[in-house]
C-alpha cells in the first residue's frame, strides 16, 4: 500500500504542478485528494453509492481494503468489458440488477482522489456550526428615541427655568440637589399649563401607538407556523444551493409558485434517506432530520430499504400550513414577477436560504406592493412585448424609462378583479 501511496504522491505532485502552471486557481482544490475526491464522489457516485451503507450500489467506505486500486480503476472506467475478462468483476456485477455507468472520462488521478475519499477516517464530531436561525424583527424605534429625547429636553428645560427663576428671586444658587429637585416638583405641581401640555402629549402619544397597534391587526409579518415536516430551507437552498425554482417550478409559469409535490422531493430523497452527521444542529439531531425525511416516504409510500415504491400504497398528501396568504380579492401572479420582471425570490420572501423554518418576511400589504411598483423601473429593452411601447414613449415624450406605476401598475383593476 505504501508504495502505491508513494506513486500517487509523485503523480499528484506532477499533475498539480502542471495544473498550477496552467490554471492558477486550481491550487486550492489540489490541496488534498480526499477533498477533491469528495467533490467528485458527490458529483458522479453519490446517486448510487454511499460510504456507510448499500444503496443501488454497494457501500464504498473501505472499498480499497477489499479491492485493489487497479481493479477498482478498471471497474470504474468500463465495468462491462472488465466483467468479460475478470471473474471477480462478473460476480461483483450481481450486486444489483442495474448495471453501473462507465466512467471512462475519469482520469487515474481523479479515481485515486475518489478512492482516497472512501478510506474511512475517524469521525471528528463537528460542533453544530449552523446556528439556529434567529428571527430578528427589527422594529423602527427611531420615533421612540426621539420622543424620549424630547421628554428629557423638556424636563431639563423645566429644571433650568426653575433654577434661573430661583437665581433671579433669591440671588443665591440653591444649596443641594435634593432641594432643587424638590423645587422642580413644586414648580411642576403649580404649573397648570405644563399639566395641560403633558396631557395633550400623552393623548397624542397613545393615539399614535393605538393607531399603530390597530394597523398591524391582520398583518402577519413574521408569521412562522409549525409545518408538518420540519423542512429546512437553510439546508436545501442554503447549504446545498438548490435553486428555488427546482422545487417551486410553477413560479415561472403560473400565478402560484407551487408547493412542490412529494414526487419532486423524491427526485433527491430516493437516494438521500438520511442526513449527514454534520447536518445535525443543536436544535435538531440527525435522528430528528431522518425522521422528517421518513415523512415524505410515508406520504408517497417508499420503502427505503428495498429502494422501491410500495405497491398499492394509499398516498397521503402533505398538508403544509400556508404562510403567505393574500386576501381573495387581490390577484397576484408569480410568473409576472419572476419571469417577466426577473425579480429574485428573496426580494419579497427574504433570505429564505438562511431560514431553518420559513416565516413571512414581507408585510404583504397593499402599501408594500405599491411602494415597489412606484420605484421599480421597467426594463423595456429586452422583452419583445415592450418594443412598440418603448418606441412610442421615446417618440412621444422622449422618455426612456418608466416605472411600473407609470405603466398602470397602480391601477385598482390590475390586482382587484
Amino acid at each position, binding site marked *: 500500500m505504501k508504495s502505491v501511496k508513494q506513486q500517487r504522491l509523485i503523480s499528484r505532485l506532477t499533475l498539480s504542478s502542471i495544473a498550477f502552471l496552467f490554471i492558477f486557481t486550481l491550487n486550492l482544490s489540489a490541496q488534498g485528494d480526499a477533498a477533491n475526491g469528495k467533490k467528485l464522489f458527490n458529483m458522479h457516485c453519490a446517486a448510487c453509492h454511499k460510504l456507510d451503507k448499500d444503496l443501488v450500489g454497494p457501500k464504498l467506505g473501505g472499498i480499497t481494503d477489499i479491492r485493489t486500486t487497479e481493479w477498482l480503476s478498471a471497474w470504474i472506467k468500463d465495468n462491462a468489458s472488465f466483467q468479460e475478462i475478470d471473474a471477480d468483476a462478473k460476480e461483483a456485477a450481481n450486486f444489483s440488477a442495474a448495471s453501473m455507468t462507465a466512467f471512462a472520462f475519469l482520469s487515474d488521478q481523479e479515481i485515486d482522489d475518489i478512492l482516497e475519499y472512501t478510506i474511512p477516517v475517524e469521525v471528528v464530531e463537528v460542533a453544530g456550526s449552523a446556528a439556529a436561525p434567529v428571527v430578528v424583527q427589527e422594529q423602527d424605534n427611531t420615533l421612540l428615541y426621539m420622543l424620549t429625547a424630547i421628554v428629557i429636553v423638556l424636563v431639563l428645560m423645566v429644571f433650568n427655568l426653575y433654577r434661573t427663576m430661583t437665581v433671579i428671586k433669591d440671588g443665591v444658587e440653591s444649596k443641594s440637589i435634593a432641594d432643587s429637585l424638590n423645587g422642580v416638583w413644586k414648580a411642576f405641581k403649580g404649573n397648570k399649563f405644563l399639566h395641560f401640555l403633558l396631557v395633550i402629549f400623552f393623548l397624542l402619544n397613545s393615539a399614535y401607538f393605538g393607531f399603530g397597534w390597530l394597523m398591524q*391587526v*391582520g398583518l*402577519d409579518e413574521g408569521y412562522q*407556523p409549525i409545518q408538518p415536516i420540519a423542512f429546512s430551507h437553510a439546508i436545501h437552498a442554503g447549504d446545498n444551493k438548490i435553486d428555488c425554482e427546482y422545487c417551486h*417550478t*410553477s413560479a415561472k*409559469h*403560473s*400565478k*402560484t409558485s*407551487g*408547493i*412542490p*409535490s*412529494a*414526487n*419532486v422531493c423524491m427526485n433527491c430523497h430516493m437516494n438521500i434517506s438520511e442526513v449527514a452527521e454534520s447536518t445535525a444542529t443543536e436544535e435538531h439531531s440527525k435522528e430528528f432530520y431522518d425522521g422528517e425525511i421518513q415523512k415524505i416516504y410515508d*406520504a*408517497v409510500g417508499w420503502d427505503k430499504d428495498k429502494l422501491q415504491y410500495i405497491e398499492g400504497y394509499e*398516498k*397521503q*398528501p*402533505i*398538508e*403544509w*400550513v*400556508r404562510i403567505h*396568504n393574500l*386576501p*381573495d*380579492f*387581490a*390577484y397576484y*401572479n408569480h*410568473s*409576472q414577477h419572476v*419571469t*417577466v420582471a426577473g425579480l429574485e425570490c428573496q426580494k419579497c420572501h427574504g433570505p429564505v436560504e438562511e431560514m431553518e423554518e420559513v416565516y413571512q418576511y414581507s408585510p404583504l400589504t397593499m402599501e408594500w406592493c405599491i411602494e415597489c411598483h412606484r420605484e421599480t423601473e421597467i426594463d423595456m429593452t*429586452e*422583452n*419583445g*412585448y*415592450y*418594443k*412598440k*411601447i418603448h418606441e*412610442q*414613449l421615446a417618440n*412621444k415624450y422622449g422618455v426612456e424609462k418608466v416605472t411600473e406605476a407609470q*405603466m*398602470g401598475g397602480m*391601477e*385598482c*383593476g*390590475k390586482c*382587484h*378583479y
Partner: protein
Amino acid sequence: MASNKKYWKSVEELNENSSIVDTLRQNEFVEEIPTDEFLGNKESLEESSTTRRDFLKYVGFTTAAATLASCEGPVRKAIPYVVKPNEIIPGVADYYATAIADGFDFANILVKVREGRPIKIEPNKEANGSTNARVQASVLSLYDGLRLKGPKQNGNAISWSEADAQIGKKLKDIQAAGKTVAFLTSTDASPSTQNIIASLGDVRHVIYDAVSESAALDAYQTMYGNRALPSYDFSKAKVIVGVGSDFLGDWQGGNFENGYAKGRIPTKGKMSHHVQFESNMTLTGANADVRVMITPAEQHLAMAKLYQAVVQGISTREASPINTAVQKAAAKIKKAGKNAVVVTGVQDANIQAYALAINNHIQSEVMDVVVTNNTRQGNDAEVMQLVADMKAGKIGALIINNSNPVYTLPNSADFVEGLGKVDLSVSFSMSDNETANATEYALATPHYLESWGMIEMKKGQYSLMQPTIQPLFDTRQFQDAILKWSGSEQSYYDYIKTSFTDLGANGSWNQALHDGTFTVDVTEEVVANEFDLSFGYKAPKADGGLQLQLYTKTGLGDGQQANNPWLQELPDPITRTTWDNYLTISQADAEGFGIENWNVADGGLNGSLVELTLGDVVVTLPALIQPGQTVGSIGLALGYGRKVGMKEEMKTGKNAYHFYSDFNNSQYGASLKVVAGEHKFACTQLQNTMMGRGDIIKETTLDTFNDHSLDPKHTWNPVPVVSLKHQEVEATTVDLWDEFDRSVGHHFNLSIDLNACTGCGSCVIACHAENNVAVVGKEEIRKSRDMHWLRIDRYYSSDMTAERAEEEGVGVKQKFAEMEDPSANPTVAFQPIMCQHCNHAPCETVCPVAATSHGRQGQNHMAYNRCVGTRYCANNCPYKVRRFNWFDYANNAEFDFNMNDDLGKMVLNPDVTVRTRGVMEKCSMCIQMTQATILKAKKEGRPVKDEEFQTACSNACSTGAMIFGDINDKESQVAKLKEDKRAYHLLEHVGTQPNVVYQVKVTNA
C-alpha cells in the same frame, strides 16, 4: 334616414299614462328600503321583550366578541399533489378539444380546465364549433349534485359487478326465450355506438328525439333514399324563406346562426333577405326582414302555395295577406335562384318534401344533401310501435340510454304501463330523472365531460369526445357497459381508437384528439328520386279553437338541463322572462278571453292564469301577452315542469309534452278559459330601463345604407348635437373633462354589431361562467335584483305607415289597426348591454371612496374591497349596468344554487373574486382575460396578436356580432369597426365616451 320608430321593451311602456314606467324611469332602485316593515308595526315593536338596554348590551357584546375573534387569523392549509401530473401546472388553465352530443345539442368545443376541473366551455372555432347558451351552461350540469351517483336496482344502490351479472343473465334468458331486446336511445350521432348496439346480435334499436324532426327525416328518405337531414349553409343564401322553422333556435339541431349572421352583415352593399312565416314570435322571426304572422294551419297553406309558385309556376291572385306575402317571397326566390333557400319546421312529411323539392328545383347551394346532418335521427313511428309492442308484452328487455321518455313522451302513461310488462328495463342516465326512477335498473352514466366518444355530426365530419375530469361518481359509459355485456374485453376508448383506424382518417389519433375533429372524404353522389308531389294540399283539421304551437326555449331546450340554475335564470330572448314557461297569446285574443298582464308597483309582471284544454289534457298555466303572436294561435314551451331529481327552486313551469301528441309541434282545437288567481312572472323587460333616453337602437334600411349621396353622420347615423355657447355642435366635440392620453399601450374596445346579433344568449351564460356571476332566484329577479353583468335588451318597434301598408297589400282595416296598435306585429332588435367602460364615466366621479376608477387600457375598474355600497354609481350610470349584491349569494342556504354546494362551487373561476354582500359589481371587460393574454405575450417576449384579445362574451359569440380588441393596434378588427360608418355609441349626447361601440342595424326589407 334615421327611422322615427318608437322603441319599447314592454307593452306597458306604450301606455303613456303608466305610472309604473314613470316610476321605474325615475328610480334606480325599484323598491324603497322596507324600513316600514320592521319599524312601522307598532304592536310588534311594543310586544318585543328586548329593551333598549338589552339591545345595547347585545350589540356591545357581539362587537367585542367579533373584534376579539377577528384578531386571530385562520390557519390555512396548502396541500400539494403527492405526484403532480405532468400536464398540470397549478394556476394555469389547460384546454382540451372535445364535443358535446347530449341528444339535443351538438357542438365542437374547447374545455377550459383548471387543476383538473372543467370550468368553462368555449367554441372550438378551428373546428367550426359554435356554442349556444345550453352548451355554455353544460359545464355546470357536470357539477349537479342531484345526478345519479351509481348504479341502482329498484332504487337501491348495487355494484356494477352485480348489475353486470344480473342483467347479463336476464338478457341471455330473454334472448333464449325469443323475446325482443329493444334499445331506446336519443340521437347521439355516433356510428360507433350504433355498431356496439348492433354487436349484441338481434336487437331492435329505436332512436327517439324528445323534440321530433321525424317529418323532415321522412321527407328526405322519400326523396333521397336514406334517412338523414340536409345541411344548410346560410352564409351562401341571398334569400331565406322560413315557414315555421326556428333555425336560429333549435330547428333540426340548430347551429345555423353562424352562417346566417355572415350573410346579415352588409358587405359591399349586400346582405341576405329573410322572410319568415310563423305563429309564435321566435328568435328567427325576430331577426327576419319580413315577418308574416300566420297560424300553424296556415303554415301548411303557405308552403303549398310557395311550392306551386316556385316549382309549378302557378301563382294565384287571391287577395289575402298570406298569398301576397307568399307571392312576394316566391318572386324573390326565383330571382335569387340557387342562392335562395326554403326551410320549414312544419311537422308534416309532405310539407317538408315541398321544401326539399323547392330547394332541389332551384338547385339551392345553401342546402347540401351530400354532407348530411346527423344531429336528429329520431323515428316517431318506430317509437310509437315500440310503446305499442311494450304494451302488448312483446318486448323482453328495454334498454334506454340518455332519454327520458317518461317525462317527454306525450303518451307517457302508455309507456309506463308498457314498462310494467317488460321483463327487464334498464335506464342509462346521467340525471336521476323520471325514467331512471321508473325502470328496474338505473345505471349512472358520466357527463360528456367525463366520457370518451366519437361523433359524426355531419357526414364524414367526425368529432372526438375525451374526458376532461376524473369521473365524479361511480359511473360507467353506456358503450362500455354494452361492450361488456356483449362479451367484449375491449373498452370503449379502445373501440373508438380501432374505429378511427378503420375509418381510414388522415393524420394520427393523437393529432385528431388534439384537434377534436377529423374528416373522412365523402365522395358519393346523391340524386333526388322522382316522386309524386301532386298529392295536393291537405289542410290540417283546424276548425275551431286555438292553434297551439309548441316550441323550445333558448334556456331549457328539451328540458334535460332543467336542473341548471344558469339556464333557468337566463331571460328568454323574446319575452325576457326567467324561471317559467307560459302560454304566449296575442293582445287581441287576450282581450277576447279576458286575459290580463299587469305590472305591479315594484315593476314585477303579473298575469292571469288560464286553463288550457286540448283533447283530454287540461293544464293550468300563466298567460303572457306576446306582441307578434299570430291571432288565433298560442305558444307554449316544452322542457319545463320536471319534478324528479330536481332542486326545489328548479321545479318551474308546466310540462307541455302532454300536449305534444303525434310529436307534432302544431296542435289544433285548443280551448282555454281564465281561472281564478294570478301568476307572478320573473320578467326583466321593464328592468334597468335607460330612463326614457332615446337614441339607443339605431336602425336603417339597406337602400338608405347603400345611398352614397347621404352622409351617414347627418342622416341614418346622426351624431347627436348639443348646445355650446348657443350654437349647435356635435356632442362628441364637447367635453367636461380633459382627455387622458391613451395612445401608448393597449386601449380596449368592444364592437357589437346589431345586424349579426341574433339574441341567442350564449354570451350571457359565458359571462356567468367566466365571472362567477351569482344566480339570485326567481323572487329576487322579480325584484329587479338580477345579477347579469350582460343583458340582451330586446326592443320592439313598428313603423306601419300608409305607404308601407300599400306596398305590402295590407288591408285598410289591418293597416289602421297596426298603426294604432304597434304591438301587433312589431319588428325586433336585440342589443347586448354591458358596462360601456366610459372614458368619462359618470359612475367614477360620484363614488365617495374611489372604489371605481379608470384604467389606461380603457377598462372601468371596480375594486370590490374598496366599495362600501353607497350605490351612487348605479344611480349615476346612464346605461344601468351596475348590479348590487343585496345578499351573500355564496354559502347561503337561502340561495341554494351552484355557489351553495361544494360540487357546484367547482365551476367557479379561481381568477375572479366571488363578490360578497353589500358591494357593487359589473362587467370588468374580462380584465382577467386581457391581463392573462398580455402576461402570456410578455413571458414569450412578443407583441400580442389581434385575435388573442378576447372577452368571455366575444369568445362565445358564434355570429361574430361581438368583436373585442385593441384599438391602438391600427390593424386590428375592432379599430376598423370603430371607424366604420355604422359605428355609434350609446347615448352619445351624454358625453361619456364609451369603449363599447355599436353598429347600426341595417334591414333588408
